[in-house]
């Protein structure tokens, strides 16, 4: 009797083991890829270009302050009509500051950023290793000549930005290559292509293509990155409100 119970346990353990370790492995790969965005303390200087078919491109410039996984501050520097507008993420909370009316407003990451194809959360929460359940669906997927892990992410948290994400991560160096975003029912919303990776595997060119509006895309170019120990106080409502 004891022997048969033990055999059943061993059998069940063997059945579960590959599933658990595959999920862990997928999560580990996503964590490794996203570590590039959240490992340390940086200032990014970026250009943000909204492209619409048949229309003149709209250009914005901003400074992004990043510290670890959960602190980010973005300040718009151009054009003048949005100058000093600021976005803050601290943990799960996000705010926007409008200098003309001197108000901060708490925002949801699912709101659209400046009429672009990015949501606030797309640039404030770069890390997909939290809030999603990961599983590898292909480990030899090819994207523009790179062999990648193709990982499906499904949301496990109400605060997750998307219901489903397909994430392509280069096998060689865990560099993030592409993200596809879907609704719960599987309708594709948009695709983020990440390229021009630097020596730290940080993509310098981010291009978001809308799947719902043909020809619509938004490009974020990281012009320069400065490593700097940013004080924690920067990531506070008080600093946000100290603008003009």
């Amino acid at each position: 009797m004891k022997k048969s119970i033990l055999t059943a346990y061993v059998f069940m353990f063997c059945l579960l083991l590959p599933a658990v370790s595959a999920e862990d492995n997928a999560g580990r790969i996503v964590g490794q890829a996203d570590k590039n965005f959240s490992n340390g303390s940086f200032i990014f200087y970026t250009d943000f270009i909204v492209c619409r078919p048949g229309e003149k491109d709209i250009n914005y410039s901003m400074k992004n302050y990043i510290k670890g996984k959960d602190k980010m501050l973005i300040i718009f520097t151009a054009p003048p009509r949005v100058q000093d507008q600021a976005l803050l993420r601290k943990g799960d909370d996000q705010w926007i500051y409008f200098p003309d009316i001197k108000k901060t407003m708490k925002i949801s990451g699912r709101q659209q950023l400046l009429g672009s194809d990015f949501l606030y959360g797309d640039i404030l929460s770069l890390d997909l290793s939290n809030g999603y359940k990961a599983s590898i669906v292909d480990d030899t997927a090819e994207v523009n000549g790179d062999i990648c892990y193709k990982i499906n992410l499904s949301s496990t948290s109400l605060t997750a930005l998307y219901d489903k994400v397909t994430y392509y991560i280069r096998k060689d160096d865990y560099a993030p290559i592409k993200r596809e975003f879907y609704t719960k029912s599987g309708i594709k919303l948009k695709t983020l292509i990440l390229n021009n990776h630097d020596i730290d595997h940080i993509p310098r060119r981010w291009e978001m293509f809308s799947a719902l509006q043909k020809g619509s895309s938004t490009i974020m170019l990281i012009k320069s990155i400065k490593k700097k120990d940013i004080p924690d106080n920067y990531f506070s409502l008080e600093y946000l409100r100290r603008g003009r």
Partner: protein
Amino acid sequence: MVLLIVLCCLNNGYSAFADLYESNYSRLDFEPTFSPLNANSIFNPNNSLNLNEFVFGIRSVSRFYNTINDSSHLYFNGYGWVSPFGKEVKWKTEKTIGNDSLYYLVNELYFDYVYSPSIYWLCGQKREAWGNGILWNPANVIDPQILYDRPIEAQKGRIMVRNEQSYDWGSRDIYLMPVFLNSEGSLFPSGVDLAFKITGMLNDLEINVGGVQTCLTNNGVRKTSALGVWMSRVYPNNLTFTADYRCAFLSPYLYPSDDDLNENIKRKDQLSNSVLLGLSLRVPYKNITIRGEYFYNGWGYTLQERQNFINGFNKMNNTQNYSNYQKWLDVYEPYLLSQNYLGFSFLYSDILGIYDWQFQTAYGIDDQSVVCFNNLNVHLNDKIDLYNRIMINGGKNEYSEFKQQIYNSQFAIGISFYLI
């Protein structure tokens, strides 16, 4: 202010601040404005102010923000008005109360100084924007703005010395603000408002508490005792819920001992409570924000009280005793007269960033009065915006509050230059 500037020169302070915001910003607006006046306004009973039938003029707002050094800045916001048809504004008693042909006001002029990562000083005149409200802002107990203060960024701030201290959990601000009411023409304040503000997070809820108490006053001067609490919470489905609350004691200044304004006298020593509830929806994948607000105005009158009050005004006008009227305007003008309001705002930003359109309307539940504001901004290029503002007042009957405003409507076309 002099002390802070000296401090700034002696000590470079904490130099990281300048990294955050751009060092310079400068903007100039010119706005030709046309406003037909309301002959039956309670703010101008029987045209006691002897005004034209309309106001036409050009208003200009100039703003600049300049870095002095790595830890301090200077900000200026001035408001100018020139009117070809303007004239001296007088009571029928010939007392001059202003001039609407030409004037210039400094709305904001302040200097700030970052002493350390957690200590910040500000000195000068600044508009404070406490609270979550868009149409009403009851929680702003130190610098109340009313529905008609449009554009809000061109409103006058208060003179203050402010100290902010940041902590891990949030921040604490202390304000010292001179009070100049009832000391017409005097350079010396008649009292001091001492105020505080505390901001912190409680799980997902952002909570702010602010209070003000007038102290060191001369006899008979307005005293303010008020507390504001405001909070907001965002839900994952793009909904934002906000709640603002104000409680305030009415002060002796608010009850001029004048029988004609007897509705005020009855209110002595009352505590008033006001509440603003708001719900905003940002439409996903569209640049559209929709917001609804309900405002219970604790300062407001019932319909009967308001009619008595207006009758008091008429008596005042018959006897030509305006001694308390200016006080009433100074003190009550920032506060609406009814009790229950609904508000609706719609904001649309063109996906290409070419124009923004904002429509706001407020409805007085008690007296069926309505006011609508429509703003359209067209961004011609990176340096120039064109805009149009329209305001229309209406109401069911002559007692309707928004119909009693001094302007029936207002129409303005403006141009903004971004100079830097």
